[in-house]
């Protein structure tokens, strides 16, 4: 049995026929070929699959694709503007060397955007608490914190 799902992804209409047990992250990755959203765990802990759903950061592994029917989804690919112009948060991650292997990065960036949307001028402690749902194994978070601080200062 399959179920049809219609949603808006990065500003464009998308529809797919999915297995009812399919997770949203697999719809994005495997059917819509948006492979910037990553799967780093199977317990909703690592945050590598973080996207924006109707303007809120959510873990795309924690909901079924069918639950996203009618939703407005932004992925890391959609954060980039026209002509590959990066979002200020993406720029800040590059400027501050806030990424190494790059695997956690899309989810980290999406979470960081949400963090600043909720709290435009966070303290270091607030940034660290706000990113607690995203695991990075490479950077030790030091430069990720700096990147969020830079993005906040420029906003």
């Amino acid at each position, binding site marked *: 049995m399959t179920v049809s799902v219609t949603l808006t992804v990065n500003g464009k209409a998308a529809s797919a026929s999915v*297995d009812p047990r399919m997770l949203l992250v697999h719809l994005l990755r495997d059917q819509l070929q948006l492979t*910037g959203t990553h799967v780093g765990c199977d317990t909703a802990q690592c945050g590598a699959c973080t996207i924006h759903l109707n303007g809120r950061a959510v873990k795309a592994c924690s909901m079924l694709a069918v639950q996203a029917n009618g939703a407005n989804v932004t992925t890391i690919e959609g954060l980039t503007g026209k002509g590959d112009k990066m979002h200020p948060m993406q720029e800040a991650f590059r400027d501050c*060397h806030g990424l190494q292997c790059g*695997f956690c*990065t899309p989810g980290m960036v999406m979470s960081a955007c949400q963090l600043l949307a909720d709290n435009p001028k966070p303290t270091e402690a607030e940034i*660290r608490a706000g*990113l607690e749902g995203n695991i990075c194994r*490479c950077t*030790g*978070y030091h430069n990720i914190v700096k990147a969020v601080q830079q993005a906040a200062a420029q906003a």
Partner: protein
Amino acid sequence: MTDMSMSPMNQMGKPILRREDQRFLTGNGQYTDDIHLQRETAGVFLRSPHAHARIKSIKLEAAQKSPGVIAIFTGQDLADAKVNGLPCGWLINNKDGTPMKEPAHPCLAQGKVRHVGDQVALIVAETQWQARDAAELIEVDYEVLTAVVDTAGANSATTLVHDDVPGNLCYDWGHGDKAATEAAFAKAAHVTKLSFVNNRLIPNAMEPRAAIASYTKHDDSYTLHVANQNPHVERLLMCAFVLGLPESKVRVIAPDVGGGFGSKIFLYAEDVALVWASKRVGRPIKWTAERSESFLTDAHGRDHVSTAEMAMDANGKFLALRVSTTANMGAYLSTFASAVPTILYATLLAGQYATPAIYVEVKAVFTNTAPVDAYRGAGRPEATYLVERIVEQCAREMKIDPVEIRRRNFIKTFPYATPVGLTYDVGDYDATLTKVLKLADVAGYPARKAASAKNGKLRGLGYSCYIEACGIAPSNIAGALGARAGLFEAGEVRVHPTGTVTIFTGSHSHGQGHETTFAQVVASKLGIPIENVEIVHGDTGRVLFGMGTYGSRSLAVGGTAIVKAVDKVIAKGKKIAAHLLEAADTDIVFENGEFKVAGTDKKVPFAQVSLTAYVPHNYPLDKLEPGLNENAFYDPANFTFPAGSYVCEVEVDPATGVTEVCAFSAVDDFGNIVNPMIVEGQVHGGIAQGLGQALLESCIYDKETGQLLTGSYMDYAMPRADDLPSFKVDNCVTPCSHNPLGVKGCGEAGAIGAPPALINAITDALGVRDLEMPATRERVWRAAQARA
């Protein structure tokens, strides 16, 4: 070597932003699971739910009839096809000269399963769901056996993990001068003794392992896309030892790889089974590990149980160090497992100190747990933890300041031959220690401690002065020590007609930023814009050869291979330029991207020489081949010896056991630095993993059943942003004496140096002697209560 310091194109030592970041930040990275091949099928492994069991029967009928199933393979199929087990790449001999035990390591279980997660069957289906559904229908009749779990108890356990390995003993190895060590202990004024558990860790690169194997009938060849740190080594081991295929028929591609930390060095059973099965199925097979599978089957790290004794004279001068260690190999010998607690561990036990005599014994044991192998630091964190903990304890017992006892015992003249087989070429341990004392504001510590005390908190300060051996390794030395492979690196410089350059390197970048650092080196040497340099890695079909990335070797060994190839390009370019400028070869100098006749204004730019090489109309064809393409292999003359001094400051709440890492200061000596931004990032990440080991992380198996109790991120405490402070990082430079870049390697330092600094700080705060890693709140609280 060409002097690059004056060139306007000189990029050395600059914090150039990373060239790889655009793709990673915009979702355009291409990791193995992002790749889809035509007619791809899905592979799923059925894994053992038991730590130790005999397989009485496997019933496949129901699963084979399940929708979408294409094929199911078991260990019997691999045995019938005469597929060998996985090899171990390093032979260790016992004290009595006999070789270590190397029990069979089948790619799919044959007869027995030996750890939870051991692979029993490979199910290939049209979709992953169908493969998983079919896996549920396989009936395996297990006779559950007693599990051997405990590292310290494995040797005396009555159960055998492998029937042909008595006492579960892989090897019983000794290193150093036992008689000299005993003699030094006999005359010691004081002996300090400590026992240690170096806690078992799970590497947890954020990208789970993944592989796509495909077979092409038209030329009878295989391609394996795999999340791996050294695709040529993977191919070599798989072809030569397991599948008996010619390397010319196998291409291994390691595309973007989401972190490795050692765990993606190894040849894994899944990779081999997938490659073998891809021909049987006639279609590509993709497998991506779930995180649960990563926990169960990625090679784990550390897991040592040790005792150490330091003999001193009355002034706290170290006379001798005596160490006894039991190291857990897990259920099977992983690719480099045997070398980690021996060659990469015992040889580092001198640390930064002129201890004249050292003797170490290491027993390696098999248990019913996942294989244990190299994890960031690999042996060197275990050595450093032991040395730096006991040195701190020596200071406490001798009532000597921990800084002073280190200074009193530092090696001060170089080169220095340690009693455990290494020769340190350069270093300045006083310099890094002096610098870190300022960076950490140790002078202001008493006031901070008093302020903490006013709030009912206990403040502590801990030091760690680590050394590591990187740039692995001189092949002849490694060979004499049991390595079954060379440890050189290969590089190729392909100059294109228009003067742009593609570099092919056997090193592999999975977060280290080689596409930037290596390009900085080449652009600086050739005097061309960095945009004109492309770095290619991770593909046996494009790169001539490679030994890969581990042991902080990429720039020191791989970078040097590239430098050597660039030097050959320049040497040939001089001959071409001499012809164009009508001068003698010996009169040509290469500066700032131009070939010049020395002492004149006659010159020709690099791009004109390259064009001439490919359009050889005016060219000395009688004595020079056309083209401008050079290879180099570089085998290092010695290890490199990064070293540094770390200071950790903690505040402990004795009422709750909560430890706050207030400050962490690191001063490293990595030799010359090409990109300080990237180097600092490597240090940050290493420190985070080191603090993770010391404060949070621990892989725990149930002692009775061998079930992994820490099998998810809900149970295994990964360091998160709010567990760590920002770090203070600086460096000193004594350039490596034996490679042209003067570099030593920076990838593992933090993970090596951080754990003892943290535990020394907490034990200082609490005034206790022993505290096991990780220093969980419960352990710290209990230690605080016992003290009260």
